[in-house]
């Protein structure tokens, strides 16, 4: 199976690879996996007090399409609001990367990771503003 040029580009030059502090209240972390292929994906978002995604990082164990899908997702969400990021669908990733049918599950995984990261952030910040909570977290409340 041939990978599209965009997949190869993201695979060889992944954007935003790495980690953010998952104990930071301003950071939402999503870790999901697909047992059938054994792929695991971690996507983290750092969200500012106004609800804008300031930074995004990912770590993926999987095939080239899985790495490209998560790399693209982190690139897209930066600068978006939580609401806008929620709108990103796996089909957008499929179209952008020209993923073949057998690799569509990789884009689904990226969407799931993104949703999980947003959900984690919202859960962490259900009460109070992220900044205040963040200060408490630093004092070792959690």
């Amino acid at each position, binding site marked *: 199976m041939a990978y599209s040029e965009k997949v190869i580009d993201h695979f060889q030059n992944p954007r935003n690879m790495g980690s953010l502090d998952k104990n930071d209240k301003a950071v939402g972390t999503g*870790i*999901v*996996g*697909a*047992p*059938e*292929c*054994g*792929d*695991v994906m*971690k996507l983290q978002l750092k969200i500012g007090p106004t609800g804008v995604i300031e930074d995004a990082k990912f*770590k*993926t*164990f*999987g095939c080239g399409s899985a790495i490209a899908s998560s790399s693209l997702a982190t690139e897209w969400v930066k600068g978006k609001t939580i609401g806008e990021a929620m709108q990103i669908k796996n089909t957008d990733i499929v179209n952008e990367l020209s993923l073949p049918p057998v690799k569509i599950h990789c884009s689904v995984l990226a969407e*799931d990771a993104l949703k*999980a990261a947003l959900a984690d952030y919202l859960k962490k910040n259900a009460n109070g503003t992220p900044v205040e909570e963040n200060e408490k977290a630093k004092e070792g409340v959690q």
Partner: protein
Amino acid sequence: MPNPDSGAMTLNGAARHLCWSCREETGQGPFCTHCVKIQPVEQMGDYFALFGLSRRYEVDDAALKDKFWELSRKFHPDFYAAKSEPERELARDNSAYLNAAFRTLSDPVKRAEYLLACQARGYRVNLVPPQELFEDILTAGELLESAALTDDDETTLRATGRTFAGRRAERIESLARLFERLLNGDESAQAEIEDALNEIKYLRTIGERIEQRLGANV
């Protein structure tokens, strides 16, 4: 022995069938007890029944293999070259079915999934298994991505590989006990089986990748 007067569809739990050729009752084996012609083995029941095994998780690997070879010879299409077309077709179909059955029952994961399917339960793929396992996989995955492994990296990777393999073996071993519970009516075992299966699959993939990487580096 079949009782023709019973009129029931089943005898000792197994369905009864008429031979496609002589129209007499075939008995429960793969060959008609009346005219000795080959019968479609699908009608013998599930994969376990084909091998004469009871439907449980633990199987005797040696007995399974012996029975597989025995049936392989009996259904081998070469022996049917001079027979009628329906018999040749059945020999091919039975061989394919037998191969699929053996592949399924000889693999601890496929066997577990098949057994769950036989129990007519949905198989739920859990997207969020143990997070700490995911962290371990991602850490090992990062090492696998690096262009060159130092001696220390290799030692770490080897140790991680052993830990993963041990954990996988443990989980596979736990399946027998879990299925015992499930088949005895303990519904709560189902979720535990699914979690174990998912974990085994993740561990298999990362384990294979580590082996590939170290294999190329030795």
